[in-house]
């Protein structure tokens, strides 16, 4: 198992990267009144056939050849269901894949959200060939990070340049703090 939801998001979003997406949207919504935390990961990559889709939740299915098990999606699904949440994957060949997981906030078996800023930062900085839109909602407050805006400003300058990498990290933490005032869920 992963120790936090953010690491599941990192793991599952890497599948979108490998699916040759050009745009990945990640939406994290926390609503304390509804007692709900939900995560939507949506890409415009190669998608999956119905046959693959049936197998993707099976831990003994993987497309890689280096090992015989594929635990990314099963871990994620298990984490959601164990916390009184829901899980689904929709996918269409040539159109993309959408993964949704929800968690009951107050559920004792819900793992912490964890370092979601670190996850988004890692995805953005190490996968410059594609764009990310990250949307964070905490009750009534929200913010969006869109790498297309960064790219437009930066041109050829890499996100990996120390100053830029630091800017992205600071941007994430300042924006998130302004929404949730540092409340850890």
């Amino acid at each position, binding site marked *: 198992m992963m120790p936090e939801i953010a690491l599941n998001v*990192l793991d599952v979003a890497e599948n979108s990267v490998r699916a040759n997406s050009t745009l990945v949207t990640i939406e994290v919504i926390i609503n304390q009144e509804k007692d709900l935390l939900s995560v939507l990961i949506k890409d415009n990559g190669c998608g999956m056939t119905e046959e693959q889709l049936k197998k993707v939740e099976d831990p003994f299915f993987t497309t890689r050849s280096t*090992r015989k098990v594929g*635990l990314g999606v099963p871990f994620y699904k298990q984490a959601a269901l164990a916390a009184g949440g829901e899980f689904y994957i929709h996918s269409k060949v040539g159109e993309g894949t959408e993964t949704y997981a929800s968690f009951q906030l107050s559920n004792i078996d819900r793992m912490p959200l964890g370092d979601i800023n670190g*996850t988004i930062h*890692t995805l953005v900085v190490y996968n410059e060939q594609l764009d990310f839109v990250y949307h964070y909602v905490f009750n009534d407050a929200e913010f969006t990070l869109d790498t297309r805006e960064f790219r437009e400003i*930066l041109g050829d*300058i*890499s996100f990996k340049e120390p100053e830029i*990498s630091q800017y992205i990290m600071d941007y994430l933490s300042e924006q998130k703090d302004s929404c949730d005032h540092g409340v850890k869920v």
Partner: protein
Amino acid sequence: MKSLEELKALRDKMQGSVTLRNESEASTRVVVGMATCGIASGARPVLTALSNAVAEKKIEDVAVTQTGCIGLCQYEPIVEVFQPGKEKVTYVKMTPEKALEVIDKHIIGGNPITEYTIGAIMKN
């Protein structure tokens, strides 16, 4: 709060001073396994420690990148170091602390840390 204006200012400051680094031109590649197995066993802090160290110590010609699963899940987090003309070095069961040691002794110092490599672990 960080704004896009600030990013523009940063760009203007950097333009000219930044020599655009191309990953394919970097001679040393430090690769972190970031599949499910790696992430679950703590690869993300290792990746962060490595790239921060390379940036802070201003080490030229080194690219820190990520890869998928190389099939040795029980030894994750795994870091591989590729240098031209040298044999690949595979470090296993890495931590951010060990990763920093690798930067200092191997990447800067030129001496691989044998005790952290897969060869040393498998002998035990």
